[in-house]
């Protein structure tokens, strides 16, 4: 059991959701450090010193060539062993938006068969543009990150390349069979979404997936942007006031898991 939960939020050129991601973890009691990827590569900071690795949103290296590609390569080529050990040690990873793109492109997600190799991608939205809007999500997996989160949540997305595409039918079936699909876009009443409920045209409305352990999570929507109550887009209409929003539970689950298991 660990009472001092240590979180590393990785940043590099173009990362821009690191502050609010760090805030979410630290507001719930974790000890958070925002570390430049250079420091991990140089070895002045060690991944092994932390329990949770967070890859926040943004435009790492401008998303030049393709979203997340260059940082994904840095992880894959320079930190692969550290990351594999991190997962083997039972620790947690969360990639949000650009972080999800990075995890997918580095092959860390869906992480089938423990080998790093790209099995899925996040590609240009069908709408051909960047869009910021709120989406309804169905929670449907056994990932430790969504413990106790039955039903639907409401989070914002903000991306131009969020369309989830698996390599092939086999990968998709495996993900479904393994229960690795964590979030699906849905309509307000939980039904089949059409645009813009599914904001990007993602295959099978997939918004977030986890690896086979359930401890590595990647999602396009931003839970850290619905962490506080007043971040809700129409909180002024809600009669039941609270301190936190729908996304807070995800961070809380991560922290609680560490406290109970590591």
């Amino acid at each position, binding site marked *: 059991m660990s009472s001092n939960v240590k979180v590393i939020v990785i*940043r590099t*050129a*173009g*990362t*821009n*959701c690191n*502050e*609010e991601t760090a*805030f979410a973890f630290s*507001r719930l009691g974790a000890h958070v450090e925002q570390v*430049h990827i*250079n*420091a991990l590569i140089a070895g002045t900071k060690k991944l092994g010193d932390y329990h949770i690795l967070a890859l926040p*949103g*943004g*435009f790492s*290296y*401008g998303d*030049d*060539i*393709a979203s997340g*590609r*260059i940082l994904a*390569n*840095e992880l894959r*080529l*320079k930190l692969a062993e550290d990351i594999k050990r991190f997962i083997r040690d039972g620790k947690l990873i969360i990639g949000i938006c650009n972080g999800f793109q990075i995890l997918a*492109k580095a092959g860390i997600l869906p992480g089938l068969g423990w080998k790093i190799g*790209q099995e*899925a*991608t996040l*590609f*240009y*939205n*069908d*709408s*051909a*543009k*960047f*869009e*910021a*809007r*709120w989406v309804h999500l169905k929670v449907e997996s056994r990932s430790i990150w969504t413990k106790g989160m039955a039903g639907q949540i409401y989070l*914002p997305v*903000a991306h131009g390349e969020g369309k989830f*595409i*698996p*390599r092939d039918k086999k990968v998709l079936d495996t993900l479904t069979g393994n229960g690795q699909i964590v979030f699906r876009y849905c309509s307000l009443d939980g039904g089949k979404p059409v645009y813009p409920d599914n904001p990007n*045209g993602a295959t099978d409305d997939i918004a977030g997936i986890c690896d086979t352990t359930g401890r590595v999570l990647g999602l396009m929507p*931003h839970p*850290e*942007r619905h*962490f*506080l109550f*007043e*971040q809700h*887009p*129409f909180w*002024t*209409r809600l009669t039941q006031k609270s301190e936190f929003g729908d996304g807070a539970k995800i961070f809380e689950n991560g922290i609680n898991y560490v406290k109970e298991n590591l």
Partner: protein
Amino acid sequence: MIWRVEVKQRDGTLDTQGLSIARDITDLGLSEMPQVRVVSVFLLEGQISRDEIKRIGDELLVDQIVEQYSFDLKLPLQSADHHVVEIAYNPGVMDPVEASTIKGIRDLGVTGISAVRTARQYHIHGKISAKQLESITTRVLMNKLIQHVVKDPSHVPATLGIAAPSASKFDVMIVDLLGANDKKLSEISKSGQLYLNLDEMKATQSHFKKEGRNPTDVELETIAQTWSEHCRHKTFRGVIRYREDKTGKPQIIRSLFKTTIAAVTVKLNKKWCVSVFHDNAGVIAFDKDYNVCFKVETHNHPSALEPFGGANTGVGGVIRDTLGTGLAAKPLCNTDVFCFAPPDMSASSLPSGALHPKRVMKGVVSGVRDYGNKMGIPTVNGAIVFDEHFAGNPLVFCGNIGLIPKGKEIKRVSKGDLIVAVGGRTGRDGIHGATFSSGELTGDSQTVSSGAVQIGNPIEEKKVQDALLKAREAGLYSAITDCGAGGFSSAVGEMGEKTGARVDLDRAPLKYQGLKYHEIWISESQERMVMSVPPVHIEALLKVFADENVEATVLGEFDGSGRLQLFFHGQQVADLDMRFIHDGLPKTIKEAVYQKPVLKKENLPKSNQDLTESLCSALSHYNVASKESIIRVYDHEVQGTSVVKPLVGPSTDGPSDAAVIRGRLDSKRGIAVSNGINVRYGMIDPLGMAASCIDEAIRQIIAVGGSLERIALLDNFCWGNPDKPDRLGSLVRCAQGCYKAALAFGTPFISGKDSLYNEYTHKGKSLAIPGTILISAIGIVDDVGKSVTMDLKKAGNSIYAIGTTFDELGGSIYLENLGQLGTNAPQVNFKMAVKTYKAIEKANKAGLIASLHDCSEGGAAVALAEMAFAGGLGATVLLKKLPYKGKQRREDILLFSESNSRFLAEVSPVHEKALAKIFKGIAFAKIGTVEASPEFVVYGLHDQPVINARIDELKEIWKSPLK
């Protein structure tokens, strides 16, 4: 050698980029939508083996799930139905993906890479004539100022470098000023693009006479840049002889700035004004630990020529203003306001050489999106004004708010501090931007001043920001400013005004070799800042920047000489007296005449029976119509601070008034930001326009829960050529309106900007934009949890009108839809407005108002309809209850008059009594009820229905124009 790699999507994947280009092509008037496929081309130079190229392709350039690549050099097949156009950036224009591609290749362990350029190849399938293809190429696929068509893609150049002679051998250019007569002086100014007038040239001449020598070219450039209208604001700070009517008594205005804008702030003397007018942004107190700063800038001329790049670098520039305020503030949010010609304007009625407004809008919005989103700064608020007068000269206002710890707003350069340049490298881009913006646009501006057009690199600026804020916390530098217009010349010149400076220009890191010394000095390459660093901290500072992969270079020293001395490869190229640069500008007297325009009285329709149609026309007017399609491409929620977002209501599509954000995530203290702009009021009276815009900006902040006690203003004047007395006359009158209104409201100005010479010379005729003032307001909010939004909340609640409606249709949307301007533009009753705003503040603090919306363009009718469809609820309204004063009592006046200082409020029946008490002595009347049924019904003066519509239909009408 150079490898050419082509990347395309696999068959069966949706080519969304191709699709959106196909749509743009169809917009040009093609009968059939063509099919377009886009191929990305990478030219990679260096010692790279075939195996390495394969690795680069497999692991970096393509996403194997959806893309494939090839590197054979077969010519693309073309046929009558298949056209191939390849577009590349011109040499010297920053290729946005070059640096990261090189990094990505090196990460793979391929070290032989030396240069990268990219291009895009468009495969257009469809029946298209050669002429149509030419039009598609120039109007959709590229902008010739920064790009060109690659004639033969199979021909790979020998090198990607820019061929340039060695710069170490050079001659210092001496300009013969001493022997020049008046005519020659003017010629020198014109041919050198100095934009200095004869008086200024003569002052320079006599200064060098005293020095006993002729100036060098770079000395003249430095003077021209420092004295430019852009940097010096000669109109606002010079002497003006002002008359109302040609025969009126002349009035001498010593400084328009000091007697109007600054005078308000001096008189009000608010202790929460921390730093006003002298820094890159105005600074006011926020909480006990922090201050906030606010700046709004224009980037009109560049945006007219290259909308994407112009707006892109406009946003980048104003963010650098925040980074360059005090010892650097952290950017919190953006606000952007544009003035365009209507997107449906016919191409034939545009001035020649002007880009179509649709293209301008698309480019500007994309430019703002690109920079703001990539830097992770939410664009939370904005406005767009459409008017045909902006066809040749669009306006682009970019604003940024920053947060700065108390005490860090003070900067001071000390003798002996080192001059350090950080950020992007210097290239030939943006030469003469400062002086260029001080002249009018002409039909051939596109070719003459193409050097003034640039593309930004937001990721470079984000890196600079990250490193800078670390260095600030460590206290490693004593002052900082951004390189904006005028580049190093402006930044070093300003910082070294008191100390003098010595700069070795050859130390500046360059994008490519071959730059001349004067080009390095005045280049306006983006993403650069200049800092002054005490020598004891230099090593630590350089390390902070190196850790974040940002270049930082010592260029010289603030040496205490009182002179500006420039060297290039050891040879002195400039030796100027700082006092002359900063104080030698001769005072000019400009003539100003304000002539009241001759206006035609409005002619209202006879019948007022059915105004549903008029409401629909108002809702679908471009100025009023939903901007959702634009708001959604901006990331308005990054940083997690947004509290009142630009879109509100249960369907997140209602138009909110001001935006509210938190200053910090761990506190409920917030910032409200809004803008007031209305050019049609100014066509009637610029003074009234200023007062109305100030009222609008303030009342929007009041509407979301702000307090009049803590609102500060920014002014941005965009006007025509101030050397023409009529233009200057209306400018003076507008500034006087600013003075009057801001003083009456007790809201100080803290910063501002003017962009003059917004004229477009075409076929010998000078077309000026309508004089335009943008008032931006910032308010400090005690508790963001008490914010109020404009969407109706609950059926059964009452609807109240606050404030009196007058017979003021002049300049309104209603009249514009009737093809008229009118005469009676809205006035402001300051005393009543202040009283009203204080009462609303009190009511909001007590939580008595369920929803609140200000009345602006489209009047009460539009405001009521917006509240209804934003909340998904109906409303019944009795017009005869609306507080009104005026000779004519007509339904259309009551509904569509745009009188100032008015709101509509939704109130729960339990709070009605308490509210009535608060609003004693203020026009305040119950005019209707919120209904569960989705109908919007307004009853006229004789209780007859004058508007009757379904809210979903009204919403659709409001949403569709800019979808």
